């Protein structure tokens, strides 16, 4: 078990999320935000601006004359894409090399996050258009809590293994049983510390239990993330501990009005796109390094 104080200490010790991206995300739901605003917010942060422009000029967005400024990138790719690129650039700056408790490195974490973002956008587009636009960015940040939980989980790796392997518990339940908290709850603490919008914090907090989210908008967003996360796990966009030992809540699927077969359309649309996005964002989902137990 770990205490709230221990969590708080570790949250404080994380590198600080770039202030420029946090400032940008404050405008996530602002219908009035313009390309000029985005450029003004990012301009003081040269490193981040360079990263964003590099992504905006990647082959993922096709050939064409290169964009030279953030404003051009917004015009070419749209505001929401820029929010996503800035978020992923910010995330890349703060990721630790390795998340030992989950058995993954930074590239695998980024890869899973990028894949969830793509799937969430597709699920949102089809089943919850009112949150489609934030789904991508929320998807990138949904697992932030793992950055802090990882080290605690690693200290109990033997118990973790037993619970996953012989008791077949869901990973989230194992976290709660061993630590008294989980990566959702801790993710919300990190979002608060980094002054990210409440909607993003709630998305991180409740993506495994959307029904517990305290308002209608975050419930919808969490439902979208829950389904997207589940799909990435069963389609190989995750190689961390526990693999498929997560729950897909049938009532969450039903709450989005997804008919049987509907998810198959989402999958057919998303897999190739997610592979390309993972590569663009510097993610890598390595062949699972499988410890042979038996």
């Amino acid at each position, binding site marked *: 078990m770990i205490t709230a104080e221990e969590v708080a200490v570790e949250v404080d010790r994380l590198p600080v999320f770039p202030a420029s991206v946090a400032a940008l995300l404050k405008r996530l739901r602002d219908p009035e935000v313009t390309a000029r605003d985005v450029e003004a917010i990012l301009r003081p942060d040269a490193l981040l601006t360079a990263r964003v422009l590099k992504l905006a000029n990647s082959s993922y967005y096709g050939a064409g004359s290169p964009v030279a400024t953030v404003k051009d990138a917004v015009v070419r790719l749209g505001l929401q894409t820029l929010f996503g690129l800035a978020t992923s650039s910010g995330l890349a700056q703060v990721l630790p090399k390795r998340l030992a408790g989950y058995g993954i490195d930074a590239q695998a974490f980024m890869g899973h996050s990028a894949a969830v973002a793509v799937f969430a956008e597709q699920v949102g587009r089809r089943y919850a258009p009112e949150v489609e636009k934030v789904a991508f960015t929320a998807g990138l940040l949904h697992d932030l809590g793992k950055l802090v939980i990882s080290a605690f989980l690693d200290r109990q790796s033997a118990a973790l293994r037993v619970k996953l392997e012989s008791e077949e518990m869901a990973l989230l339940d194992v976290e709660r049983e061993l630590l008294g908290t989980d990566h959702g709850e801790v993710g919300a603490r990190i979002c608060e510390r980094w002054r990210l919008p409440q909607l993003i914090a709630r998305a991180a907090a409740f993506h495994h239990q959307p029904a517990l989210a305290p308002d209608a908008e975050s419930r919808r967003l969490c439902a979208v993330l829950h389904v997207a996360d589940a799909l990435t796990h*069963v389609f190989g966009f995750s190689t961390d501990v526990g693999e*498929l030992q997560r729950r897909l809540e049938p009532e969450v699927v039903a709450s989005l009005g997804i008919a049987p*077969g509907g998810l198959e359309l989402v999958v057919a649309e998303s897999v190739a796109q997610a592979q390309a996005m993972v590569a663009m964002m510097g993610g890598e989902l390595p062949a699972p390094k499988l410890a042979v137990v038996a």
Partner: protein
Amino acid sequence: MSAQPAATEKRQVVGIGELCVSDQADTVLITYALGSCVAVVVHDPKRRVGGLLHYMLPQSKAMPEKAVAQPGMFADTGVPMLFHRLYAVGCHKRELVVKVVGGGHLLGAADAFDIGHRNLEVLDKVFARSGVFVAARDVGGAVSRTVELNVGTGRVTVRSHRKEHVL
């Protein structure tokens, strides 16, 4: 960890939604992290030919244009294509050893949304209709599998986070 492949062995990775047929006896066909996807692994011991399909979804009916672009994405288009490729290099259906791996699911996934279950169900129908006998299977459960086929020997190895075994 599993033994490292012999230096002379060529490893050919089959991606998600792809298929591969090989007549090179020193080749190992391998596909990773099956999740709810299914691998159909076929071997012709007489000709030392192997084939592996890693399909994602059961049926292409609702997405015919996807099936044209990438037939290996679906059971109903990928399986026929795999067998036709094998016939094209001289294999006969009755001499093929067919094994099926994957079709896992998340905890608590309801049947209607359980793509792994639907993937296996449709495969059974395709095989029943075309008279294909399945020699061995390692399917279902909350398990993600990696599978490899040694084209020369026909040995099929399945690995998951729990274990490694020869199927």
